[in-house]
């Protein structure tokens, strides 16, 4: 294989990221298609997908809730935050609800430690949370959804 060709393979992660940005997750069909494009065995692409936590294999909810479990958030109570959301929405870490509205995921660090504990919903960060604030934020999303539907 030529050097140029090898260098191209460096773009595998980038292509997977683009796919996920477009579809929200990486489907089996996408893996097969990308493997063909890169002239790689399917298993190798699957291996890369499963290695990196960024890649999702199931469709996420319309609103993706990320609970920061960085050190600062953890010692201030991110476990409680996660539990409160589970109690409210009935979904656990890594799950999407039946309507496909909310998905929940704990992440390593959102990098806003001074606002701990924080969550982000579709990229918008909410900080200095307590139970009341948190439930209100989720309720607002539900309300917004009900109004729009």
């Amino acid at each position, binding site marked *: 294989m030529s050097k140029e060709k*090898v260098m191209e393979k460096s773009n595998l992660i980038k292509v997977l990221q683009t796919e996920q940005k477009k579809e929200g997750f990486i489907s089996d069909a996408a893996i097969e298609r990308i493997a063909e494009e890169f002239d790689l065995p399917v298993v190798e692409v699957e291996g890369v997908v499963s290695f990196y936590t960024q890649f999702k294999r199931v469709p996420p909810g319309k609103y993706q809730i990320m609970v920061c479990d960085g*050190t600062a958030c953890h010692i201030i109570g991110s476990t409680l935050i996660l*539990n409160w959301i589970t109690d409210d929405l009935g979904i656990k870490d890594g799950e999407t609800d039946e309507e496909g509205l909310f998905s929940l995921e704990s992440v390593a660090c959102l990098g806003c430690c001074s606002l701990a504990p924080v969550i982000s919903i579709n990229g918008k960060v909410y*900080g200095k949370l307590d139970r009341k604030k948190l439930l209100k934020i989720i309720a607002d999303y539900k309300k917004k959804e009900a109004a729009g539907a």
Partner: protein
Amino acid sequence: MIKRIKVGMASCGIAAGAGEVLELLKEIAQDKEVVEVGCIGHCYAEPLVEVETDSGNYIFEKVQPKEKDLQKLLELDEFTRFQPHNLRIDKERLLITSLAGKIVPTSLDEYKDHKGYEGLKKALEMKPDEIVEEVKTSKLRGRGGGGFPAGLKWSFLAAKESEQKVLICNADEGDPGAFMDRTLMESLPHQVIEGMLIGAKATGARKLFIYCRAEYPLAVKNLNIAIEQIEKEGLNIIDGEPVDIMVKEGAGAFVCGEETALIHSLEGKRGTPRYRPPYPTDYGFHGYPSAINNVETFANVPFIVREGGAKFAETGTENSTGTKLFALAGDLKYSGLVEVPMGISIGEVVYDIGGAEPGSVKAVQIGGPSGGCIPADHFDTPIDYDSLTSLGAIMGSGGLIVIGNDRCMVETARYFLEFTTRESCGKCTFCRIGTKRMLETLERITGGEGSTEDVELLSDLGNKIIRGSLCGLGQTAPNPVLSTLKYFNNEYLAHVEEGFCSAMECKALVDVFIDQETCIECGQCIKNCPVDCISEDYVVDNEVCTRCNSCIEVCPVDAIARIAKGGEVSVRN
């Protein structure tokens, strides 16, 4: 007269609501220039707005997106002005972050107005080995954690003969609780790039990568804008040849901070590390000689070349020169990003700069999942590479979490181990299985089922994982446990011998108790309990209770508390 209004729009500012402030400001001050800048490091006071006037600059803190408040700010109202506390000003030494939050990150002109790219200009007129010498003179050590001398690393790459050489900026800041690199890239992308271009001249590398974690979209955006700007101006031309510089986004794997794993990831593969040697300077990206430096290391370089290595070495200690950025968070008053001279004591950072109450702190955690906990009675230790290592911690990349008296050290250690267990790539048996066994043991202890043998097992297994692992992840994973075992052994023993967690944090060792004498029977706790375990006469059924703290949070008279299991008095607070 107001010349310009600057809104701090780094990630932390945006999270605190700076976006809304910016929009409203643009609306009500249409005749003024409103710009977005980076972060000045005082996260606790976000959102921050700075007003430049003829008679000086004024900073306003905790600015709310309300028209009335913003009007006051435009009138330079004295009451809401921000003044960083004096102790912090005294103790900080800003060598590399002096421009952060002061200039528009994506303005090349503004960076140039503040000596930007002067270092590069000087470097282009120097011989490669002269630059390497200058960096050696500065005694700059790698800021990613390991502390390897940067000049020496560059000299290895410079000495290589190859059709292609590669210089990589490690911006995969994966430590939970660390955000130094993010701030540098968001607020000063040009400074990082200038450092890399100087490195390219010094080492002969003509292909440059910035491997940035994907969770930092603003950093990626600002870096890409900056790269476009320098390419347009031809600042990337070295010895008549354009240098290729590219941002590559990581995909979320902590182990990719390790250099051989990072290279695999750059090549589009699974990010597993490999045995060294060969070192990347011999065999790196696609086999080409490659050198990898951390973001903060590169950010130091323009100063070193511009002002001289000797001048740089004036700050800090004999073997640890310059400054270090720390992301200060946890149980303290002033969280944020601080830049301190090497050699400053931990206590000065925690108490003087961070404003933590003396007596309220039991330890600091330095270096994230690879680092260790240092107890308060060692706070006079100077912050330099060697002193920290001798205490069982590491400099790490710069996360510094203050741990208050009411936190459980066993739980803290468990948390870090859970992180490394999850992030272990699985290549080495000791790291893959050993960390899992350690985690299970810790879970037994925090779950109230541990024994004294478990405590001994932890230290034995920890030391074996260090010896049996290939890369930095495994070799440092046991540090949080070993350091807490060393300094907080009594807490481990209290858990296993008495079933007692003094911090009231470990769920299995606490009950929730309502003090009938304080209770006003308002019903809030009953209403908010997700598992309906509080009876009408305000008694908690601890068999059903999940210790979620909902009732404690809503109680208006603080009548509810966690108490030691089987006990009857409130111990917390």
